[in-house]
Structure formats: structure tokens, C-alpha cells
């Protein structure tokens, strides 16, 4: 009984320590201030000039992470914001996108990635190997504006 309790405690401790980890998602720079240039103005904040609101846009990039290390699909911050959202702004004939909010909805920590890789490489009792995949999605939205 004592051994069982010790094992349970150790298991809980290992789970607690082993599963906690930090994931950092990054994307390239948006527009700086003062803003000069002809490209679409992008900011998580306000507009640098007076503007007219044209509307609102949101996009979600979906993808998969295969075996913890290979990312396929569109679940990247840069692609979602500078690709999908900017294309939508251009279609709306806007000059910029302000108050951008974004979220990498299920970022994988290094521990999770290593776990998926180990799972994908291991063989079960029947000699089968199953490649582990995880659903990934990145969400972003903002306000489409035209400078006056």
C-alpha cells in the first residue's frame, strides 16, 4: 500500500513537471510609426492618420503538426495576417488594418512536440506504427480602414 502511494505520488509529480512547458509563437514586424510607404498599414493599435472605417475582417489558418516536428497547412501567424488578412484588405480597397488581435489557438510546447515524435517513432504490440498528428489553428482579426 505504501509503495502504491509512493508510485502515485511520483506519477503525479512527473505529470506535473513533465507537462508544464512554455510555447512561444512569433511573427514578423507590422508597420512602424511614423508610417511611410504604399504597402497596407498593419497595427495592433490605432491608425497613424485620420481614417474611414470600411469594415471588419477575421481569418483562421488551419493546419496540422505531423509527428511533432512537421507543420503543414496555413496555421502560421505571418501567413494568416500578412497573407489572408492583407488580401482581404486589398479586396475591400482598404489602406490598412488596425486593432489587430491574434491567437495561436493550440501552440505546441517542446515537451508535447517531443512526446508526439516519440509516439510516432514507437511501435505498438502488433508491430504497427502510428504517426501522431495534431490539429493546429491560428486566428486573427481587425478593422479595415482607408486613410482620409
Amino acid at each position: 500500500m505504501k509503495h502504491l502511494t509512493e508510485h502515485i505520488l511520483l506519477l503525479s509529480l512527473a505529470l506535473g513537471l513533465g507537462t508544464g512547458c512554455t510555447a512561444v509563437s512569433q511573427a514578423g514586424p507590422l508597420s512602424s510609426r511614423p508610417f511611410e510607404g504604399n504597402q497596407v498599414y498593419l497595427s495592433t493599435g490605432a491608425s497613424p492618420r485620420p481614417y474611414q472605417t470600411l469594415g471588419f475582417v477575421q481569418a483562421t489558418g488551419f493546419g496540422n503538426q505531423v509527428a511533432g516536428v512537421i507543420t503543414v497547412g496555413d496555421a502560421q501567424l505571418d501567413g494568416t495576417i500578412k497573407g489572408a488578412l492583407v488580401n482581404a484588405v486589398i479586396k475591400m480597397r482598404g489602406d490598412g488594418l488596425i486593432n489587430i488581435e491574434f491567437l495561436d489557438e493550440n501552440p505546441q510546447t517542446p515537451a508535447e512536440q517531443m512526446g508526439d515524435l516519440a509516439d510516432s517513432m514507437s511501435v505498438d504490440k502488433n508491430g504497427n506504427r502510428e504517426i501522431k498528428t495534431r490539429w493546429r489553428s491560428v486566428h486573427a482579426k481587425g478593422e479595415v480602414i482607408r486613410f482620409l
Partner: protein
Amino acid sequence: MKTNILSASFKTALAVACCASFTACTIVNTAVLPSDPKMHSPFVTTGDIQGPYQSLGLLQITRKGHLLFGFVDLVGTDIQTGFTETLMPEVRRLNGDGIINVRFHQTQVLPFTQVVQAIFFPIPFLWTEVTITGEVVKLAPGGTVQPVLQHG
């Protein structure tokens, strides 16, 4: 028969009251992060700033963990740890002066759920995480942090 119905009603009311007392509550999480006027450490704001700056990129940090015995947060999945242990070092690593338009979210767990987890601790189900997002910026030379005033 009537006594049985009354007794059943009383038990139901008692159960509802118990459930309400356990589940009706407000959970508050705070992070103490005073701004430094001398800019020795990066500034953090949920708003925008006036004045020129260079955008260094978007940043999201996520800390994931498990509440051991329902209460013990071994790795720090609260907003205080998220800001001080992960976000600030990342801003410094990117050579930023600060981070603007910050949004944050921490998993909040009912005390009742924590008690249940403490009782059934071998089954780890209390996964928690904190997520913080923002735009890392570098101020123009001589620039200072002045928030954009919001007019209602």
C-alpha cells in the same frame, strides 16, 4: 407518502444549495507589473502608445501545466508568472523596449473542481494554461511611453 415527497424535495433543495455554495463564486487573478518611468525594464500595456516606434513583431507566449492535487501549480500557469517569467524575457530577447496592445487569458478553475481534483488526484484532469499576446516595439531615439488617450 406525503412525508416522502417533502423529504425528497428537501433533499433536492439541499443538494442545489450545496452545489450553488460550491460553484457560485468569483475567481480573481492579478499580476503586479508596475511600469518603470526610467525604462530599466520593458513596458507592458494593453493599450497603444503615442509617438514613433519600430514594430519588432508579434509575440504570443503560452505556459501549460497541471494543477497537482488541485492546487499546486508546479510550473506557474498564472498571469503573474506568464508576464514576469516568460513575456518580459522574450521582449528583452527581441531587443524591444516594450510590448503594446497586450491581451491575456488564464484558465480559471472553480474551488469545487480543485477539491474534487485533490480527492481524485491520481487522475490528472486539471490542465491549466496562460496565454499572453502583444506587439513588441522599439521606441524611436528619445521616445517615451505616452498612452493614447481614449475619448468616449
